[in-house]
């Protein structure tokens, strides 16, 4: 017998016409948690060094590692890009790991689960993909100038460059989908795998898969933010420079 699996998020309640699904609820919880942790970190960082908590230093270490990773990709642009890339990384990481907590997916309201991992909803990942691609265009215009960045897409110097420009436009659009489907697919595949393994062998068998999903969640967060970093780096580098 196959357990109840839905690849779209299910509505829980509605304010007039705004339908709150279980993914929206989980994402709201994660966002509030994220803001609270950020405020706590901010308050801790103003204290004298001896009074800071262990949590502060853990987050500090994590941020240092992430900073080093992005620094190797974006080099001198890191001071401007780190808030965006770090937010992508931390938000996706928290979103993925929140979806693996016990109780998420197993607490039911009637027939539907109360909470569902945010990245297991195509709307959320599509929103993240759109934000990432728009920010790529924004930094492209900011660093290369209006005409400089547009000349990448509309280049009339010879026919080959013209067709390369069209291909560039197509690739910018398809990046949105590749961003969102990569994250969505990996996370929902993990969730379905866990549910099916748990329904085949109820005890202990899903544990190694749970560990693998923790790893996959981390890897997907790294991949999403690193790809955003690479695309921004490519957009801010003019053609004559490389």
């Amino acid at each position, binding site marked *: 017998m196959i357990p109840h699996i839905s690849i779209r998020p299910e509505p829980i309640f509605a304010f007039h016409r705004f339908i709150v699904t279980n993914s929206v609820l989980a994402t709201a919880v994660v966002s509030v948690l994220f803001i609270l942790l950020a405020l706590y970190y901010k308050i801790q960082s103003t204290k004298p060094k001896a009074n800071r908590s262990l949590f502060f230093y853990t987050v500090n270490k994590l941020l240092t590692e992430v900073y080093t990773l992005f620094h190797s990709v974006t080099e001198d642009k890191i001071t401007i890009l780190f808030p965006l890339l770090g937010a992508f990384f931390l938000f996706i990481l928290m979103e993925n790991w929140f979806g693996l907590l016990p109780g998420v997916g197993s607490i039911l309201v009637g027939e539907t689960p109360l909470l569902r991992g945010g990245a297991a909803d195509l709307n959320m990942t599509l929103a993240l993909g759109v934000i990432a691609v728009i920010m790529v265009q924004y930094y492209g215009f900011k660093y290369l100038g209006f005409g400089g960045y547009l000349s990448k897409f509309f280049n009339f110097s010879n026919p080959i460059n013209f067709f390369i420009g069209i291909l560039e436009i197509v690739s910018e659009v398809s990046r949105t989908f590749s961003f969102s489907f990569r994250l969505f697919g990996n996370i929902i*595949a993990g969730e*379905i795998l866990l549910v099916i393994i748990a329904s085949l062998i109820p005890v202990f068998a899903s544990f190694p898969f749970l560990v693998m999903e923790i790893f996959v969640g981390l890897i997907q967060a790294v991949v999403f933010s690193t790809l955003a970093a690479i695309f921004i780096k490519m957009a801010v580098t003019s053609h004559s420079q490389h």
Partner: protein
Amino acid sequence: MDKSFAIAFAIGVGAIGPALGIGLIGSKAMEALGRNPEAEGAIRTTMILGCAFAEAIAVYALIIALILKFT
């Protein structure tokens, strides 16, 4: 019966390419590591990124299979 076959076919055929790709990425990364052991960190990061790209193709096939199965 027909639908089950289509689902199995979608994910089965769709996984061949990414499997070969990830195998190649892994083997080349090991080769690079053998030639240049100091560059372990850089090789690992790039290898995982390459794996994620190849794996994304398998995930597209998986999404098709899931949509066929559960809708």
